[in-house]
């Protein structure tokens, strides 16, 4: 970086003082080229500031999208509901499929509720890791208990105890299993799973597609669903069904 550029930066940061500042101001009045360089620098910084604001607003919108419908309390499922859940789930799935075959029209919310089935809880690992696996064990217990909000926190902490793709997959799954799912966070987690080749890639692709549908982003879900169908991957039949839906607003 040349001396002039350094001076301009110091001037804009208010790091000039006394005689140096007076001299620079005087030079600006006389030296048109310097004035132009200063103006260029100010415009560039203005563009960067606007770009930063736009990017920050997108980040805030992600927070907004994750605020559930005024209900942030974690769900702890009573035992009788857990026992009745498989039967209820089957009824809901049959009803959902009936609706699909009947008219093939659904809202994204109904589609998500119809097609989302949580993945099996992670198996308990052998206890030869001592306290090093504490977060993972706590996370799997919370997941099994249906306390998905807390489970997501512990899965996040368990990165390092288990492969990160495994922790991210179950974290995303926990976020989708909540009563008011955190769709964007789940998508972010599944994206991290999809960054590498691992045992959870197929499942992550399916759940990411569902999360996108939950966010009403069917056009982004479509290529994933097509990929699942083309590869006859995890839940490819359900993916094929989702591709035939006429989305109701």
């Amino acid at each position, binding site marked *: 970086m040349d001396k002039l*550029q350094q001076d301009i930066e110091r001037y804009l940061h208010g790091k000039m003082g006394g005689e140096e500042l007076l001299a620079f101001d005087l030079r600006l009045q006389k030296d048109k080229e310097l004035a132009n360089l200063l103006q260029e620098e100010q415009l*560039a910084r*203005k*563009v960067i500031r606007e770009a930063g*604001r736009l990017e920050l607003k997108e980040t*805030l919108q992600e*927070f*907004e999208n994750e605020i559930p419908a005024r209900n942030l309390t974690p769900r702890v499922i009573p035992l009788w509901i857990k026992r009745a859940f498989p039967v209820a789930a089957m009824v809901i799935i049959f009803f959902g499929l009936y609706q699909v075959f009947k008219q093939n029209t659904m809202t994204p919310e109904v589609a998500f509720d119809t097609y989302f089935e949580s993945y099996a809880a992670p198996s308990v690992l052998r206890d030869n890791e001592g306290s090093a696996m504490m977060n993972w064990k706590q996370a799997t217990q919370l997941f099994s208990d249906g306390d998905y909000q807390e489970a997501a926190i512990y899965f996040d902490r368990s990165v390092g105890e288990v492969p990160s793709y495994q922790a991210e997959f179950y974290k995303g799954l926990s976020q989708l299993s909540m009563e008011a799912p955190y769709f964007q966070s789940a998508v972010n987690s599944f994206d991290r799973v999809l960054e590498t080749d691992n045992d959870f890639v197929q499942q992550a692709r399916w759940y990411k597609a569902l999360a996108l549908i939950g966010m009403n982003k069917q056009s982004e879900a479509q290529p994933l669903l097509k990929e699942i169908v083309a590869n006859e991957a995890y839940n490819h039949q359900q993916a094929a069904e989702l591709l035939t839906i006429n989305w109701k607003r």
Partner: protein
Amino acid sequence: MQGTLAQRNRALEHIYRENRDKVTNYLRANNADEDQAKDVFQEAVIAMYENIKEKKFKGESAIGTYLYSIARFKWLNQIKKNSIRKDHHDQLEQEEDFQSPLATIIEGETKEGVLQLLAELGEACKRLLIMNFYHEASMKEIAKNGHYSSEQIVRNKKYKCLKRLKELINQKPALIRVLQGNG
């Protein structure tokens, strides 16, 4: 708002969740619809973030109170701008004034122009310049996040990116006029 970008995002998310309902409820009670309330609240959070960085907010009041004041001031300005519900505006105007400069998100053609410029600049340069100038991230943090091998490489890259941005701006006189007009 100190720390890494990830830490700052977590802090912002906490502030967002803690204050959203209180502020948007106030705005909706003052005739903002759901989208307007959300937009004003988000711009208030951005203004708060910038004022903290620029040390204009030094923690004299609680964050929630500060956000509420900014949002109220912004909404007042918007009402004034739209010249609607004058009586209500007069009532609000009697309340505490808020003098700090406030972030306003660009829209329409200006936004399109800036986005096009950034697209031409490229993702790596855009990221680096935003991190350094807007978030005031250190060269060390940028080097770590951007997978640059040293801080000196980041400095060189920043200089080149800034130069390239200036060249691109100079090719867009219409955008220059708009940006100069925005103050």
